[in-house]
């Protein structure tokens, strides 16, 4: 058994760092479920100007970078989407106000957050987090029908301690499977390989697969468009990408657009050289 590395006071702080990071990420999922995204960006994300510039939000098809782009996508575009989803309800029922108080009508967005794995950097300045989401998402329509899906995917985050408080800096929300409620996944069209045109053996893809993942309008147009997650290749790089014990955050391997997340093995090797 080695000698004690940290002081007792430092160990207590790290004990709480673990809980605080886990709890911060749980709060993200509650905000996400309730469309409380402005509150999330204000309360849970980085605040210092230099960190706001480098903050990022990854989806399957790319990264939104900087808080302006993140806010535009994550809050403004969602609000626009919610208004467009509300419109048919108001058309069908003129007594229903086409206003902010009725946004989210017909929406279900529930995330069960499994297996939160996290490590605090040895230098105590950053933390890395990963979890697996089993989501339930539904979009209702005025005619009483609804698009109801089980949504699955891994979520990754780099967090940063700003003035003693943990904040989200880089967040990646991937999506593997979007299975309609009441239908067998086996009834989906089978996937065809397109060797040399995507991912592992070809350029990074920037489009989404309509049979999996969120819809194109939900994914939007990321600032940096490249493969962040391709469900075809699954979790091939999960072991490299998952949080491991570390001294200080290495930008080559972080969960932001400068990191190698989503890149094929040869790109990763080239960067390491």
């Amino acid at each position, binding site marked *: *058994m080695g000698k004690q590395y940290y002081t007792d006071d430092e160990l207590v702080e790290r004990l709480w760092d673990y809980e605080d990071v886990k709890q911060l990420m749980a709060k993200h999922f509650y905000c996400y479920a309730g469309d409380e995204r402005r509150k999330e960006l204000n309360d849970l994300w980085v605040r210092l100007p230099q960190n706001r510039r480098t903050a990022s939000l990854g989806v399957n098809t790319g990264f939104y970078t900087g808080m302006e782009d993140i806010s535009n996508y994550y809050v403004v575009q969602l609000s626009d989407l919610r208004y467009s989803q509300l419109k048919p309800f108001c058309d069908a029922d003129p007594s229903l106000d086409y206003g902010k108080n009725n946004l989210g009508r017909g929406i279900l967005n529930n995330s069960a957050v499994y297996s939160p794995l996290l490590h605090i950097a040895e230098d105590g300045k950053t933390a890395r987090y990963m979890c697996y989401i089993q989501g339930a998402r539904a979009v209702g329509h005025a005619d009483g029908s609804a698009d109801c899906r089980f949504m699955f995917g891994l979520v990754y985050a780099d967090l940063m301690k700003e003035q003693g408080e943990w904040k989200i800096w880089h967040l990646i929300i991937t999506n593997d499977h979007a299975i309609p409620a009441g239908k067998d996944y086996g009834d989906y069209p089978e996937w065809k390989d397109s060797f040399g045109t995507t991912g592992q053996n070809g350029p990074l893809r920037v489009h989404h697969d309509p049979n999996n993942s969120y819809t194109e309008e939900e994914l939007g147009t990321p600032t940096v468009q490249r493969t962040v997650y391709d469900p075809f290749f699954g979790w091939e790089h999960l072991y490299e990408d998952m949080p491991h014990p570390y001294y200080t955050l290495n930008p080559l391997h972080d969960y932001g657009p400068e990191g190698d997340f989503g890149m094929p093995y040869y790109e990763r090797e080239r960067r390491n050289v």
Partner: protein
Amino acid sequence: MGLSFKERLHQALGVQEIERLKIYHAYVHSVSYEREEFDKIWFKGENSTWTHWFGMMQGFEMIYYNHTMGEGHMGVLDTYEKADTDEFPSFRGGDVRSVGSSGLHGLTECYIEMAKDGKSGRLWAMTAGVMMDTLGHPKVRGEKGPYAKFGEASWEYYGADFVYVDGEWKYIHESVVPVFHNRYDGENMGQRQYKVTDDNPEHTLWRGIPCRVGVKGPLAQMYDVYQPVQHLLQECPEPYDHLDDEHSYSPGHNELK
């Protein structure tokens, strides 16, 4: 007698490390990185045990053999088969353990109790697992097409014991109780079981023993329409002084050897 500040701190850090080990296991298992699990986080002794309803593997060697040569290799061979045909050439050159995988024994929040002597910890948790295959799973091949997608909820619960050896926390006992499977999302598990049992009163979910074990199952029951409540093998641990046969998910295997 109450514990000192240092002893309490050791226990608190142990709670987090045990939770982290359990989660780490879930992820590396999901991509068949069996060496990264068994070489790193297991106690390598004859009293390590791994139990499922089909039986108990006794001793690290048997656990290691079953997982690395059995379960892990089956997944790898399946991927080789896909890449070897001309159907999925993109998989060639990929890591056959993990390429295409995307299923996980997703772990819920855990109940964790630490021994007063600080040398062991015990965990109880559920898993709401998902078995996913975007490119064909043996269960649906032929039924839905050769490379039909497959998704299934696979829920279980665990009792696990951990020991503190040479300054590190290690797994010593894992006991898995499978509860149900439900295909996403074209079926209703309860109704399926009801109908199957109505059609055939002798119906059983027991599928035998798929690998080498020291104690043969069944050691637990999956959910069934006539199943008495599962006062099964594991409940949340009670406060305890040290790992022994009264306080263990593997009675008879609690000496560190």
